[in-house]
């Protein structure tokens, strides 16, 4: 077993192994994208006192049963729709007491796109000093794989067995429209860009929102070892644009996408969840072009 640092020394250092943000022995599935972003977050936040607020989602289940905690940081479990509001209170206590604590919501797509959406929007509108990270596995994974408004067109879930017939909600665009200081997408296949964004977002003040496409082998019906490759394909095909928006009006594309149809069909073919609906590449391509035109208008 090698203990050499991985990803050019960015993760897997001695500190990552001895004081990880997500400790060994947690209950996440193999290949879980959420585990990877937690590893990156722990690395980026090494010099910050961090408090996590986690609503109902796989992220709180993996914390484990009382009195154990799989997290290497203090965690407040919030009710499903409350993460951003609970974080608001914690963040203000830190501000009132001149503490450097960074308060970070860590929520799935259900708690972000759906049930926690009003709370998220209100917290963004108030520009609270909160970092909100959504790990988006495009499914209610914790309850066994039901559709959420983050589920993409064509994906089969337990409640859309023949494939979802409507498109995914553009939550990043909506949060950016609040004019908050910083929103960005994070690709797990581009860790340098991911680390830069995590560090920037941890240091910035006001409301920051990071969206992470988080492969879920269980829900996506894909091989656990294919997770990073799937994200790479999503980026290369243009399906998952890697970009950031400052103050709601200045967008920067961080990873140029080849808009590659071959990558797109490979992305779909590696996952069982698109098999039933036989996603039509040309209609997905039209949808992708629409997204990129919208981003271009921002840059």
């Amino acid at each position, binding site marked *: 077993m090698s203990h050499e640092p991985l990803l050019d020394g960015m993760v897997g250092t001695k500190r990552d192994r001895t004081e990880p943000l997500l400790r060994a022995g947690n209950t996440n599935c193999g290949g879980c994208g959420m585990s990877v972003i937690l590893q990156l977050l722990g690395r980026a936040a090494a010099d910050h006192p961090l408090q996590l607020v986690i609503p109902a989602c796989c992220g709180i289940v993996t914390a484990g049963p009382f009195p154990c905690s799989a997290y290497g*940081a203090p*965690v407040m479990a919030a009710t499903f729709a409350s993460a951003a509001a609970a974080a608001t209170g914690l963040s203000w206590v830190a501000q009132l007491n001149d503490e450097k604590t960074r308060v970070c919501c860590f929520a799935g797509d259900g708690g972000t796109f759906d049930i926690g959406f009003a709370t998220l929007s209100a917290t963004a509108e108030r520009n609270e000093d909160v970092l909100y990270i959504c790990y988006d596995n495009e499914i209610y994974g914790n309850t066994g794989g039901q559709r959420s408004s983050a589920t993409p067109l064509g994906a089969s879930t337990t409640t859309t067995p023949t494939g979802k017939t409507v498109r995914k909600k553009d939550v990043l665009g909506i949060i950016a429209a609040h004019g908050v200081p910083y929103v960005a997408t994070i690709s797990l296949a581009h860790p340098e860009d991911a680390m830069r964004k995590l560090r920037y977002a941890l240091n910035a003040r006001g409301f920051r929102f990071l969206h992470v496409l988080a492969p879920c082998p269980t829900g996506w019906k894909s091989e656990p070892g294919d997770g990073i490759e799937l994200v790479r394909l999503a980026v290369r095909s243009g399906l998952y644009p890697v970009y950031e928006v400052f103050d709601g009006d200045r967008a920067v594309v961080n990873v140029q996408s080849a808009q590659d149809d071959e990558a797109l069909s490979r992305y779909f073919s590696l996952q069982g969840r698109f098999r039933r609906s036989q996603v039509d590449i040309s209609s997905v391509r039209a949808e992708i072009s629409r997204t990129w035109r919208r981003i271009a208008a921002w840059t």
Partner: protein
Amino acid sequence: MSVQLLTANHAAAMAAASAGRANRTARGFGSGVYPITPQTECIEYLSGLEIERGKVVLVESEHSAMAVCMGFSLGGARSFTASSSNGLAYMAENVYAASAYRLPIVMMAVNRTLGPPWNIWVDHGDTLMLRDMGWVQVYCEDNQEVHDMLLAAFRLGEDPRVLLPVMVCQDAFVLSHTLMSTDVAEQPAVDAFLPPLQLPHRLDTRARTVGGLDFPHEAEVHRRQLHETMGRLPLVWKEVQAAFVETFGRTLPDPVVGYRLEDADVAIVCMGTTAATARVVVDQLRAEGINAGSLRVVMMRPFPGEALREALAHVAKVAVVDRDLSPGIGGILWTELCGTTGHPMAQGYIVGIGGGDVRPEHLARVVADLRGRSTAGQPLIVEVA
């Protein structure tokens, strides 16, 4: 002391703000607030008050208001909010969470009818819906009591032997929008009465999860701890009463307050402002030669079953007047009184739900009905409109 002409809403806001300031030497004060009639004036007024090391966050829903308070409280700050009726229903999930996390948040709840159909007037059904949520609940009779109970609620809830949230309830419009002369506590006295909050389990830098998973055994232990804390609470309340009278020169009511009960043959048991009307009726009946008394239930949680049993042991017939209706059984106070006292003749009456104005003649009618009975029967809904 400064005596001011205040609505209960303003009296509540002033009490909350002074309690907030009193924690300025510790971790401060925070509030998440959202408007709802008839509570809105309280949070409007609170938002305009100067609170050193304090913050009032104007959120988008009651559900978030309580979540913000939970964040403040778990961070170690003193915390307060106010709500009513459907707002409380919307907030309910986090109301439960606040006590499960043992957070001594104080909430002023204005009792209002749940809708739809929409009705803004008094009814106790909204806060009684939350009676199983692990909060201490007290029901006030006048504006002074709302102000004083709120200060006492912080002291009680934050006591290290308690660490529970406290709901201070008051009747919509009858108190919330009615001006009464109120002795407003001066800041130095509040500072002396409320020690800086030390939350032993506050979220600091230690790695742990507050509110994660509980397997059945741990869940049972946590619920048992809540229940046993409720059991200890009356003793702590006695200490809070003693400290309050020493600091402010005013008294706080016992969990149950009797009136002319000593030799009573019949008694009216009720909550909130109905108790004032009941005393008038008792005096009238006494003048007619009827040995009547009344008893106000101040504390609904923990439920003062033992105190009620003792106070009513010698009373032959008891009229339990509920300003709430649990469809399918009747009044909630009545069912709980019957369940805890085993009183042989406690008849339930539902009076003044949906904001009906409870006047002396209505309670006189209740007593006349009670006196004409030889046994208790199904609860009666008394029309007061």
